């Protein structure tokens, strides 16, 4: 998937992949985060 120029909704998980880590990845791919949130499922 080509992420460059796309806006991305980022939902992370505390014990999985947290949102800031996903954000770093999508920014490096040239995308722009529209929402960055980590959730806790416990």
């Amino acid at each position: 998937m080509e992420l460059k120029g796309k806006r991305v909704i980022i939902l992370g998980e505390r014990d999985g992949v947290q949102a800031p880590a996903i954000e770093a990845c999508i920014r490096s791919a040239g995308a722009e985060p529209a929402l960055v949130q980590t959730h806790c499922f416990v």
Partner: protein
Amino acid sequence: MDHPVVKGVRFFLAHTPGLVRHGSKPSREIAKDPPLWETIRASLRGYEDALAYAPHQVLLGNLTPDALAELQAPWYENPLPEASASGPHGEIVDEELFYALLKAADDFDLVHLENGFVERLRPRLQAYRLRSERDLDHLKGSPLAAIDALIDQGAAPLFLRSGEAIGAIRTDYAEDASLAPEVLLENLAAKAAATMALRALLADSGTPAASIDYVIGSGEEAVGDRYNRGGGNLAKAVAEASGCINATGADVKAFCCGPVHAMVVAGGLVASGVFANVAVVGGCSLAKLGMKFRGHLQNEVPVMEDVLAGFALLMGPDDGESPRLRLDSVGRHTVGAGSAQQQIMAALVEEPLSRLGLGFNDIGKYATELHNPEITDTAGSGDVPRTNYRLIAALAARRGEIAAGSEARDRFVREHGMPGFSPTQGHVASAVPYLGHALDALRRREMRYAMFLAKGSLFLGRMTHLSDGESFILEANPKKGQD
């Protein structure tokens, strides 16, 4: 460096199905769809089922985590044939007795229990080993008409699982959202749970309450008023209710990571000589009752978030006997450490091990988030302890300390981990549930080291996107048996 020791721990469980309607998720959903409460109520367990539920018996110390791993699952369908309400690490009470303890914890006439119900409770509270004379003085009833009038004015009604209405909790300042009845209910429940755990710890260890110098609260409740939301210091209220007349205290707030932070702070206070005897307490998280009820109803399993939990532990100077908290082993998830799980676990586990010259296999057991997977997995939230253990195993494999592949990983998880057995009570579930078993095993020299690590979801408060984490190693006391 003089390392502090952990002398003991006690857990207090209360089976409170009637309070599930006051959990955050159920209360919001019931407000939108009032008949939903009857659907939830039909899936709530009775006390005997909660008592015989194997994970609760592990918390009380009557069953080890390794023994739990060998039991037939699902545990909710396989109650233990013999179960006790008390064990070497704590006790469980039913909802009626808990309402008596809630009233006993109430210094402001907030909880109003119906006259007939109070007369039913009085002999039970009288016979309860942890009650004080002041508790009995607090246990006064109200006429039903007066309770109905309070509810008309905004008080929150209180029920048993049976549906019997038994009272209400009111506010004494209607314009203050921080003192709303539901908030006061959460805070009073936390006070009661932490107080009973501390009283049990002191009584069972023969520790005079007056010998406690400092109490640290590590729970997630927000005690305060409109000008001081979350101002805190439940610790001192618990110290007062436990007769610790020579203590003061404060709260350490760090979401689920609070207890581990509090233990490190307590250890520092002891080691520096500021205070000799420091108790760390954590009350319950009433807001989390019924948190995952949707998933449980959907999968036709009992609504298992029906138990409140609190704990108390005691730390002090090295007594040559008790396990030591190695202050040189503290691991931290720093601001700059990054948010990837590999980076977090490296900071909490790998870095402290390297610093002490230890390998992953030197740690007998790792105590991580110990949420009961039967509660989380059945609601689509996965098995949190297993996820964490697999990541620790992956770090061990990367360092070449175990073989690569799922077979070695699973063996490492089985030998150095454990199944989750804690109610989903936030901070209570983070590492500390294993503390009683760790102290037992370290005292018996069945292992030399146990590592405790916890994570906190700071991002939930919307002040940072970061999570948090802290860890420490407990060590069998090297002086034991040398004299």
